[in-house]
């Protein structure tokens, strides 16, 4: 079987993103652009690299330092195609996701990672940041017409804020918005009690949301 130069280069690009090799990533992106590949296809390739690292993280084959350089290479590659990417149509209908760390908690690494993973999976993500009150979640969910609200809580006092956020968003939006939670303080039992989704890590969040879409959600 003859493998095209484009396919070979795409695989090299993916591996360079995984390794966090910025110069090689940029070089591959530029070559693929010169070969006429669309920004959307290049985005899909570099996103696959990030998702692969997410899998490695989930399987404990890689850890935060390895992930940080993967994200760095991804962002540098993305910067080269960002303008073109915005002018190209997206395939399929992305979900609108509002994400943030709940009030009383300022941890952001897990939340940022989930945000990146959801973005590279093609969804529109609105990141509220950290220490976000329930009312702000609810207002942004309404403004953004969110399909899903994602909440991160690493410390246990955040669980009270998390419960309040679910309640407030439901008051404002009824059943139109679903929820996904993650972070050390959260648990599958809490998600079950609140009738919402739980993700044990970033790649699990992507998979749970994928399942949600396949079940006809949103």
């Amino acid at each position, binding site marked *: 079987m003859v493998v095209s130069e484009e396919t070979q280069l795409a695989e090299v690009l993916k591996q360079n993103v995984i390794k966090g090799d910025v110069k090689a990533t940029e070089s591959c992106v530029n070559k693929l652009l010169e070969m006429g590949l669309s920004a959307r296809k290049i985005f899909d390739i570099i996103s696959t690299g990030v998702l692969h690292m997410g899998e490695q993280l989930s399987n404990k084959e890689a850890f*935060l330092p390895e992930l940080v350089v993967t994200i760095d290479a991804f962002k540098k590659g993305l910067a080269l195609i960002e303008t073109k990417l915005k002018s190209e149509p997206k395939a399929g209908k992305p979900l609108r996701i509002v994400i943030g760390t709940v009030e009383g*908690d*300022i941890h952001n690494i897990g939340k940022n990672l989930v945000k990146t993973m959801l973005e590279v999976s093609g969804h529109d993500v609105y990141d509220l940041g950290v220490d976000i009150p329930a009312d702000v979640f609810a207002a942004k969910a309404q403004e953004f017409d969110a399909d899903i609200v994602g909440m991160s809580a690493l410390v246990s006092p955040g669980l009270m804020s998390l419960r309040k956020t679910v309640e407030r968003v439901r008051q404002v939006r009824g059943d139109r918005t679903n929820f996904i939670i993650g972070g050390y303080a959260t648990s599958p039992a809490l998600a079950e009690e609140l009738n919402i989704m739980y993700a044990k890590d970033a790649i699990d969040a992507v998979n749970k949301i994928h399942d949600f879409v396949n079940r006809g959600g949103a």
Partner: protein
Amino acid sequence: MSEFTKDEMSTFDRVSATLKGEPTDRICIGWLGRKETGLGLPQVTVADVVRDKNGILLYKGIKALTEKFKPDIITVTTYTTVEAVAIGTKDKYFKDQLPAPVEYVIKSPEDLDRVHIPDPRVDGDLPCIYNALRKVVRDFGNYAPISAGTVGPFSVAARIRGLWDISFDIMRRPWFVHDLLKFATDACINIIEGWQSAGATGFTSGAGSETVLSPEHFRQFCVPYERQYLQSAKKMGFLSYSRHICSGPSADLVVDDMTRFGLDEMPTLVWGYYKDAATMAQKKKLFAEFSPCVAVGGTFRASDQLAYWSPSEIEAEVNRLLETCYPGGKYVHVADCCIPPATPLENIEAFVISAKKYRPK
């Protein structure tokens, strides 16, 4: 032979026998800090306690907890970025939870030349611990071993640089991480010198930052500096070492490498996150191969089991945990991490009383 003696022991004898795996009169109860608010201190917030430079609120909270629960070990501590804040990291303070960093002091290698090793009597919120420690030693020094410490060199480095940035540096400029770690190690050593002068006999270490590393990076960036910290503590005359394992992506993997710290340097408690009771029992055996005087504790999840379960559920779970982990001794009864400040006291009571009453079936 029964693992329990009939004669009541002093806390010092109980702790010593526990670490060696010798019979005790009951299970050894470790420190139960829940940041000391709410118990006899109405209308006092966590921020009030940790920023009180005289350490009076912290002392009062520790006194109240000690008198109520009679633990066998007392640890004087506040929050896990206190060292970094004393160096220049900026934290946000909360009413009902521990402060957390919002701006890290080291933004570039040049910043390392602009910071200084903190003096625990003067800098940031460290005087709160120093002054509370002196009072606790005065009042309880004859009752129980008293410890104080730091989060350890790697976690201090991560808290002055930021966990994301130090992770980036590990991959791209490891020389800078070693510079950070040398500074953080000196800071930790200087801080515990202060604690020793205030009367602490045991020292502590450990927080979550190192459990985002692969075992290879853990060996490279955590182990050598922790060893230096431990050896300096030994030279200062500290009598025991309490090493925390915080939950993190690699906690299950790097726990075995904690044997590289040198567990035989002094009597040691390795406490905190273990995947489950069976794992903790297994690690107890592993650690015993490296030192005759090392115990384990933890596993019981402070942030959900202890904070949200009912007292009867807690009692049942404690009994299940002890059935697996107590045989052979070398077990100290503590929760896996910081106890949330809002945890109901009846839950802590159930956690302690069920362990004190415990006898093997």
